[in-house]
């Protein structure tokens, strides 16, 4: 188990290095400059100073080496658009809001999704199942910015019950968290229902029932664990996606999070910021992927970790 985790981490670091390299050289071939129009108005001396500050006067391979050296020590450089501020400072400022919102949305998505999925799978009333499934299909058909806008109009503008800007109080979390969670809720509901129905048809459920085990215990003790395997495989990447932020929801609700920061840095061509965020997102995904695989192996004893790693 430990050996496997270390092995995966090593592969993960290699992956990150590859990601950083690709992103770095991609940045270099992008047309346009972060200093944009203001560059022309600067005196040659100031321009040189600026270039030297960001090592832009050196050759590209040299720049890359310097970047890697600094990155290893945790120095990802200064933001190019907000001069003098280290990108790590900006990230440290933006990340907590995003992560808190993401976690709330994640918890909502899992609990509501699994519950609805089980309800849809076991209800004796056909119309309940059909209704849940229809709503869930609408849920995966409507882009989250539309829910967000709808919620904002209804609860924020018309009813005025909920605040629509920022993340100051728990009340502020409700609308953005639900806008973020609606798509995954629908996805998990569908996943749990179909997986549950599949599992309940398995022979080992018949054997469990033949022991005189009550249905509710058959479902919770025998079926749920099997049915969770596909859910976990979906939930892992979902967590990574949610805690790295949805730029759409953050920009709509004016939340100063990492997602909107990323969109800003893209539109402003803030290369150091883009680099740092790419590496950050990449590491999140790698860690979550490892955790997902460990969790699946924990649930399903048939999965052999060592074999997969080699």
């Amino acid at each position, binding site marked *: 188990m430990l050996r496997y985790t270390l092995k995966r981490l090593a592969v993960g670091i290699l992956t990150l290095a590859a990601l950083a390299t690709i992103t770095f050289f991609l940045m270099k071939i992008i047309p346009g400059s972060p200093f944009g129009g203001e560059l022309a108005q600067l005196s040659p001396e100031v321009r040189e100073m600026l270039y030297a500050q960001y090592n832009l006067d050196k050759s590209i391979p040299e720049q890359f080496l310097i970047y890697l050296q600094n990155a290893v020590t945790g120095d990802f450089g200064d933001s190019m658009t907000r001069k003098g501020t280290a990108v790590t400072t900006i990230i440290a400022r933006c990340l907590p809001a995003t992560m808190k919102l993401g976690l709330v949305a994640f918890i909502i998505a899992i609990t509501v999704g699994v519950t609805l999925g089980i309800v849809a799978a076991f209800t004796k009333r056909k119309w309940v199942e059909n209704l849940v499934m229809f709503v869930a299909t609408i849920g995966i058909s409507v882009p989250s910015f539309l829910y967000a806008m709808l919620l904002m109009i209804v609860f924020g503008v018309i009813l005025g019950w909920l605040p629509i800007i920022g993340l100051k109080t728990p009340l502020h979390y409700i609308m953005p968290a639900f806008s973020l969670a609606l798509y995954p809720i629908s996805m998990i509901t569908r996943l749990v229902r179909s997986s549950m129905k599949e599992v309940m048809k398995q*022979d*080992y459920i018949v054997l469990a029932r033949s022991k*005189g085990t009550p249905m509710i215990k058959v479902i919770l003790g025998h079926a749920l664990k*099997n049915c969770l395997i596909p859910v976990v495989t979906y939930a892992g990447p979902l967590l990574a996606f949610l805690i790295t932020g949805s730029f759409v929801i953050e920009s709509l609700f004016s939340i100063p999070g990492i997602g909107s920061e990323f969109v800003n840095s893209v539109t402003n061509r803030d290369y150091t910021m883009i680099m740092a965020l790419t590496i950050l997102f990449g590491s999140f995904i790698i860690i979550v992927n490892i955790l997902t695989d460990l969790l699946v192996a924990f649930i399903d004893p048939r999965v052999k970790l060592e074999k997969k790693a080699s």
Partner: protein
Amino acid sequence: MSLLEIKNLTTSFATEQGKVQAVRGISLSVEQGEIVGIVGESGSGKSQSMYSVMGLLSENGTIESGSILFDGQEISPVQFDGNAAAYEKLMEGIRGNSMSMIFQDPMSFLNPVLTIEKQLVEPLKNHKKMSAAELHQKAVELLTQVGIPSPEERLKQYPHQLSGGMRQRVIIAIALACNPKLIIADEPTTALDVTIQAKIIELIKELKEKTGSGVILITHDLGVVASACSRVYIMYGGKIVETGLADEIYYQPQHPYTSGLLACVNNPEEDTELRPIPGSPPDLIKPPAGCPFVDRCDKAMKICKMKMPPERKLSDTHAVCCWLTEKPASGKEGE
């Protein structure tokens, strides 16, 4: 009083193509301490009739009519008249306790994500009040009883770490856990190697001797029946077409289907050719009005197509449903 007495059991399944009448009014009985064989090819309704008794039909299956008297108690869902919860409650108390089932495929009937111990002690947890230590003790005993070496280790393992024969033994151990009065063994050897098959049959016989339970052995293999059963029911197309003591079935088969089945068994003493029965079982969505075997029978007569033959008792134990035995003495040319 018989241990199990089934009368006119009818079971059907709702499918997209229509209603499949899998079991069409069968009657049979099992005494305490005897092994009874139910023989038929796949699709003859032999497994589904026993799933009906256990109340383990899949969701689209229903018992339409009939009575099932088990140990003096009526356990057919028909009497509950739609009260599924009450029926389920009754059966939960019986299943795994006084009546249990050994299943066909050791690969798919064990839950892959639970340990052997957890699955083995479940019937005990359901029906007996036992402490954790007692449960463990009993689990070790059960595994030893079915001949699994080093049971302590096996209990901690998961199904995929065991061989097929081993898993089949675990399934048998689960069925035996609460010393049931009736054990229904649904093709317990089909998925196994021939050498292990013989061992499993021996095991079932041994256990019957020890516990005195009644056993129903469902199989398509008359060879297995010969070595284990005292009485045999032959099923075809959802009906019982012949029944008798094992010897009667072997030496005086009356139904052409029984003869056909016997011709499929390789007899090492006589150097006869194996003869498969041509054709396939009838379509049970539109069950035939007459004898279900008529289309494959080489002795078929006009009446066979029109009407189901009545049951004819040949001795106290031997009965058959075939128009050949009803045939008036004059019409001899059909032979």
